[in-house]
């Protein structure tokens, strides 16, 4: 590309508002969080440099490890169920219908606020009045306090968010499926291959790059679970749903331990980068069997 005379100055002008927002609300705060993580900043007094103390504290903070564990459990349930269901939906749509009504219906939950989704399911899963428990009773199962038991709270929140995201994820996978040439499928049909075989030998290998990208996106998003916890369980019962995002929120905005919260932010960020890199490597995202 050859720079054209004078266009640099014009570009600067066009970038001015967005650049201002970028520097003020993204770049500068990001650097500040790094800096604050090495201080004892408490919102009330000026920060003092404490070196790596916050990180050392985190290593011996049982609540922090618990938060990581709980987040891990959430991500595992959320992503595994969501990916399988979304893949199922995408393949079904691919083989059966291109209807935008079906696609639209499946996407609707994704457009609704997390808070709304959380409250609807909170109502539907209530131990006394919830429709889900009414159905369970009907088939002879004792009512479950979904949000109220340490063993069920995280799986419940994970599945609620599967409900919100499965259509969205399915759409991304569906778009990937449509990029596979139909000739491959026609050839398989002539050979009389079964649906299961087509799925195993054609769809999955050719879909891998798209699936890798979708997985990286959804896993990273999934680590940032907050809204659902904040309006339903608030970290409880006991510490069962105190996910990392909610723990950081409490440390920062309820205990005003900003320096420590900043350190946890950095740790979370490093985990996300690590997870993304590991996923891309594992799934060999760059290469498709189509090439």
């Amino acid at each position, binding site marked *: 590309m050859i*720079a*054209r005379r004078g266009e640099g100055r014009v*570009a*600067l002008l*066009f*970038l001015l*508002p*967005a650049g*201002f*927002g*970028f520097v*003020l*609300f*993204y770049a*500068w*705060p*990001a650097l*500040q*969080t790094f800096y604050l993580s090495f201080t004892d900043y408490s919102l009330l007094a000026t920060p003092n440099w404490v070196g790596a103390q916050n990180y050392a504290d985190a290593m011996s903070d049982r609540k922090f490890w618990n938060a990581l564990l709980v987040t891990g459990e959430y991500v595992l349930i959320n992503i595994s169920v969501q990916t399988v*269901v979304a893949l*199922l939906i995408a393949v079904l749509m691919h*083989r*059966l219908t291109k209807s935008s009504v*079906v696609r*639209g219906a*499946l*996407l*609707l*939950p994704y*457009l*609704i*606020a*997390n*808070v*709304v989704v959380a*409250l*609807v399911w*909170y109502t539907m899963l209530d131990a006394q*009045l*919830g*429709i889900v*428990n*009414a159905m369970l009773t009907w088939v002879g199962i004792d009512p479950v306090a979904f949000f109220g038991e340490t063993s069920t709270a995280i799986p419940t929140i994970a599945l609620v968010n599967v*409900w919100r995201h*499965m259509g969205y994820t399915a*759409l*991304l996978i569906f*778009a*990937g499926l449509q990029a596979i040439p139909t000739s491959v499928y026609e050839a398989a049909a002539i050979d009389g291959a079964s649906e299961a075989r087509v799925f195993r030998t054609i769809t999955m290998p050719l879909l891998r790059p798209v699936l890798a990208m979708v997985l990286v996106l959804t896993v990273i998003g999934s680590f*940032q679970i*907050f*809204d659902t916890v*904040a*309006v339903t369980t608030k970290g409880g019962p006991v510490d069962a749903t105190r996910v990392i*995002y909610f723990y950081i929120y409490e440390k*920062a905005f309820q205990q005003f331990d*900003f320096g420590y919260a*900043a350190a946890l*932010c950095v740790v*979370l960020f490093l985990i996300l980068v690590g997870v993304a890199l590991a996923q891309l490597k594992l799934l060999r995202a760059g290469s498709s069997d189509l090439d």
Partner: protein
Amino acid sequence: MTLARNGKPLWWQRIRWQKVLGWVVLGLLVLITLFPFYWMLRISLSDNRALAANAGSMLPADFTLGAFERVLGLSSLDEARKQGGSGASIDFWRYLWNSVLTSAVITAGQVLFSAMAAYAFARLRWRGREAVFFVFLTALMIPPIFTALPNFVLMRDLNLLNTYAAIILPFFFMTPFAVFFMRQFMLGISREVEEAARIDGAGHPRIFFRIILPMSRAPLMTLTLLAYITAWNEYFWPLLVGQGENVRVLTVALGVFRSQTPQGSPDWAGLMAATLLAALPVIALFVAFGRRIVDSIQFSGIK
């Protein structure tokens, strides 16, 4: 009816059972997707006291519009209590206005400024363009909580906590996604139209506003929809800086409303009525522009 050799009608044999099974599964999944929306409506049209006895009924228990009247402030506190409301107040019109206002301002700024930035990245040639764009894109990787702490401090230092400005500012100038989305589209516009205008002596502002923006009407519309819905649904940031009654947006208000309901007897009907009303604008946008939103999400996901 033509019968085949084994005695069953032909149409029966022609059905592909794999397809039928596929449709049944897909139908079930769509049902699971849509059912909670119906359930919101069903609970919100019920009477709280009647709900307990009719937990499993598919129709509203003791049909009443009381919950909506309660939420919209059309009934007195006494009436509300009688209907099983907790007496917890939700100043719905206020919160609705706050949501409408902040989302509209965020959307207007974000779309305009992101389109301008996209023009610089897609249509202008300058040194360091790719590097600067890459830096912009890295912001997509940063979790919101990472920047939220210093941004909160900034708002406090500027004395902006519990103002509209605090809720609006971080999203007003850009989001990395918006810049990326508009750039993708603008890269595809042919150079010829632009060259012709340039020969006629048009400057860059003129080319941007009179040629590029009108040609980008479709993606601009899509981005506007997505930006508005995202701003409308935002919970985390307004929770941090906009708890105050006078600037509280609907998502935050719903969280507060839910915490106010005492553990014993929540005002389920009121809660669902408020929730439904909060979701209604998005549902309306979706009914009007569903296809565009679906297409854009497929586009943005894969490109």
